[in-house]
């Protein structure tokens, strides 16, 4: 719905996704520059800005990693251009040095950094609470409770940023990013300012001389936040309890108070400026009560900072509860209305008449089978993990595999035959492998294999590869090149040849980069199971650093470009359970396209799911899986 974010219809209300609202807010603020690295739940924001870039007269890029994105925005800011930087919570850790330094140097053009947190880590390896980074880096942070506020906060963030000459962070969570609600549009600026001339004595320099200024900016932000319209109290004047909340917690708290009929005894103090906290504003309200429940996503950040305020204010006599205090709310995992409702019933003694549970008789119940995360049908990663696993088993040297972050992270589960034993952050695999490989001098002789996807390669593997090359670590670095940032939705990366704005660019060749570092590179096709198994076997036998690119396009992309071949099982040839293969295609190979025909007692292809890669046809010992038709690329 990109048209909504550039619709010049002030006052008009649309149903908008949180990510759309954020993009709209930035456009209303007159940004001309946007940079991001994809990561759920933030990815749609830059994708949309990229699509409307030409019409909106802005520049948008998928940066190679989050640090590139933030520092690119700092560059734009130096020329007094307003910029938007977007990343997920893992990104704000990657970007730590840049963030802490930028906070010292300050900004010139307004810079808003949107960080999308992922409570319960639905699509992440951890649920890091990015508010800790805002506090640690002394950067003001705003936290919207709904899509309207998401838009308004981002827009206002630029005024704040330029007033303070400091970057401003906006923290959202999955339910804000991906949820939808009504958003009333504001005005889009008619004219966008051109970049300012950077004078000889203009500075944006990050050194500790500016620490006093940094502290002063934070104090100024706190003063501004004391009167911010994003903070408000709603409830009785002498409440038995106040719920202090931010983000989605506000919605759940409002619902719980309403459901329990506690409006006359429980008040809600909604905080939109989560760092620094408006201390006077909070004290003014908390002094009215003896009990406080803090409702917030991920860590007890608000709660601990309120405890901090209580410690300095003897007039407050409060029993504090939340994710930490009284263990009122579970310490771990995403909030939902039931969690808040339970916390409130426990603390107030008020009971809630839940609607009667309807129990479906067992014979009518449809049992949903438990499902694991797996690779898509035809995914080249399945073939890569299959052949790497078998090669390491054949080699009998107890190869150790270091995983990394991407679709192939799922290869640590059954989908990838539990291949890797180590997983850290993006780019962590190659570095850990470099260390392990250098233990060979002490007699460590197990083969060491590190994995990385193509997008991860550009994101954070280059220093690791240089390090491994320079120290000639005994390891095999496998780049699983599926020509896509598939996990987050096919955003282009430097190897693809396309920009966020849909323009062609000269792709950066992974092979040439690796060769330029001085590594010997082998390129192989993961779909050639036998051939590539031999290739990998010969590589792991060699000492020193070896690099292997397993190249095969992401099946989901490939199937859109080609006429797909038909793959089917000739059930006259399939020997069923008499084969001795033990249903190898559906049980071991495990592609969702390979299924078992229970009526015939034979293998079968789910032709709706199958994308026609044909690898299973090469694995069937009876030659019963057939492939016909189809056309190669374009």
């Amino acid at each position, binding site marked *: 719905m990109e048209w909504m974010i550039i619709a010049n219809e002030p006052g008009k209300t649309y149903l908008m996704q949180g990510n759309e609202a954020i993009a709209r807010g930035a456009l209303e603020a007159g940004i001309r520059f946007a940079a991001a690295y994809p990561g759920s739940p933030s990815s749609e924001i830059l994708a949309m800005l990229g699509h409307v870039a030409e019409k909106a007269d802005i520049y948008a890029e998928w940066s190679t990693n989050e640090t590139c994105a933030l520092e690119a925005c700092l560059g734009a800011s130096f020329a007094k251009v307003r910029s938007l930087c977007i990343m997920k919570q893992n990104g704000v850790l990657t970007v730590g040095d840049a963030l802490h330094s930028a906070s010292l140097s300050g900004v010139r053009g307004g810079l808003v950094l949107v960080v999308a947190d992922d409570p319960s880590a639905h699509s992440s390896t951890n649920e890091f609470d990015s508010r800790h980074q805002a506090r640690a880096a002394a950067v003001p942070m705003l936290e919207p409770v709904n899509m309207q506020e998401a838009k308004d906060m981002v827009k206002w963030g630029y005024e704040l940023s330029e007033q303070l000459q400091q970057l401003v962070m906006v923290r959202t969570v999955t339910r804000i990013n991906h949820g939808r609600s009504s958003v009333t549009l504001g005005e889009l600026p008619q004219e966008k300012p051109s970049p300012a001339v950077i004078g000889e004595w203009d500075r944006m320099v990050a050194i500790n001389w500016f620490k006093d200024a940094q502290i002063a900016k934070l104090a100024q932000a706190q003063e501004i936040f004391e009167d911010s319209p994003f903070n408000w109290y709603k409830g009785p004047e002498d409440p038995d309890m106040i719920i202090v909340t931010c983000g989605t917690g506000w919605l759940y708290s409002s619902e719980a108070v309403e459901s329990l009929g506690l409006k006359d005894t429980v008040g809600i103090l909604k905080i939109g400026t989560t760092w620094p906290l408006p201390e006077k504003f909070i004290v003014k309200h908390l002094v009215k009560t003896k009990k406080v429940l803090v409702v917030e996503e991920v860590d007890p950040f608000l709660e601990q900072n309120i405890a901090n305020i209580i410690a300095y204010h003897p007039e407050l006599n409060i029993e504090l509860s939340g994710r930490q205090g009284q263990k009122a709310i579970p310490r771990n995992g995403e909030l939902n209305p039931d969690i808040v409702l339970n916390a409130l019933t426990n603390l107030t003694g008020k009971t809630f008449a839940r609607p009667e549970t309807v129990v479906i008789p067992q014979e009518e119940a449809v049992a949903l089978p438990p499902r694991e995360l797996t690779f898509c049908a035809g995914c080249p990663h399945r073939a890569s993990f299959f052949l790497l696993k078998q090669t390491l*088993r054949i080699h009998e040297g107890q190869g150790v595999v270091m995983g990394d972050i991407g679709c192939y992270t799922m290869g640590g589960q059954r989908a990838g035959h539990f291949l890797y034993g180590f997983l850290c952050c993006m780019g962590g695999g190659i570095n850990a492998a470099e260390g392990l490989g250098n233990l060979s001098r002490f007699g460590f002789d197990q083969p060491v294999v590190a994995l990385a996807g193509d997008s991860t390669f550009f994101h954070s593997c280059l220093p690791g590869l240089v390090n491994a090359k320079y120290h000639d670590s005994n390891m095999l670095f496998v780049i699983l090149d599926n020509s896509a940032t598939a996990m987050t939705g096919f955003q282009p990366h430097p190897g693809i040849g396309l920009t966020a704005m849909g323009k062609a660019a000269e792709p950066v060749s992974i092979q040439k980069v690796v060769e330029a570092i001085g590594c010997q590179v082998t390129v192989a096709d993961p779909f050639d199971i036998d051939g590539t198994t031999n290739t990998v076997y010969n590589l792991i036998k060699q000492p020193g650093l070896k690099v292997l690119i397993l190249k095969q396009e992401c099946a989901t992309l490939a199937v859109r470009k080609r006429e797909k071949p038909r793959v089917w099982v000739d059930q006259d040839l399939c020997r069923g359970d008499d084969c001795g293969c033990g249903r190898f295609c559906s049980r*071991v190979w495990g592609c969702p396209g390979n299924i078992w025909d229970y009526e015939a007692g034979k293998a079968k292809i789910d032709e709706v799911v199958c994308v026609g890669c044909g690898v299973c046809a090469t694995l*069937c010992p009876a030659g019963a899986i057939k492939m016909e038709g189809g056309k190669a690329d374009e």
Partner: protein
Amino acid sequence: MPGGMELKNEVLASSTCALCGACLDWCPYIANIEDHLVLRFDCNVPDGRCYAVCPRTFADWQAISKKYLPDAPENIEIGPYFKAYKVKAPIGIEGQQDGGTVSHLVKTLMEDQLAETVLLTGSDDHITPEPFLSSEISEIKKAAGSRFLASPGMRKLIEAQARNVKKFAVVGRPCQIQALRKLDYNRKPDTPAMDVISIGLFCMWSLGWDFKNYLQREFPGEEILSIAIPQHGFEVTTDKGIHEVPFEEVKKFIRKGCDYCLDMTSELADISVGAFEAEKGWNTVLIRSKKGQELFDKSVSRGFLIFEEYPEAELERLKGASIGKKMRGLSAAQEAFDRGVKPFVDLNSEMYTNVKKLAEGKVE
């Protein structure tokens, strides 16, 4: 009959595998590169052909011997045989190891149509074994000479079956002939039998493929032309000359699975051939079945082979060597049994008790 997982636990993980190759290519689970043979993914088949055919899973070996070699007098030291001969081919063949006997027996098989296809093992680089099926006399020379690296050649059996070969012949190591017999012995009644004649080779051990890397390290850049064990030590001929490799060095590369072997002379073959230790250029031949006798006779009558009576002293020496190998295998098997590996022979059978008794007198 157990399946792949039992094969993995009892044989592959216990390092008793002889690398005969008979379990390969039946299914997608067992994989091989060089001398590694593993179960690449967990198998759920309860009744495995791999387990049934393996020479390192339990079998009543005496019953198998009786079934396939019913006519020759039993011999506890070198297996049943009618007659031992000192044999050679009067006209040699390029690259032959000793007397060229095996090459000429194979030639006879083909010329007299005793077999339409023969399983042979050649090598392109004079060291890496490459098993192949052949029906061409011109290809025999590719297989001349000995291969010292273990090769899972019996995998070609399936290829022969797929080609619907009616009359098949195998030239193989003792473990491979064992697998060949076991395959038929455990054959399900509904699968057709294959008419096979087997030429068994004498074998003390085979080497792991790391030996190849060792030679490359020792003689970098040199092209290996032949490897032989003349009388003592190991002789490697390269394009740069002849190198002696101390036997102590070579021994380090003997495959673990060979330690358990109880059969030096291919005791289940129709005809067994080895070196004649006392005189260079001659072979030892043991004839064990009527088929073996027929093949030998035809080869002699065609003039491919000439033979002499086998010297009594040399026969005693051969039996002593065989008993020595049996004793080493028995003690390795006993040791494996003690650490929980399921034995593949009945260690307490009368036969092995007699072997041990005999050993006291014969082995130095």
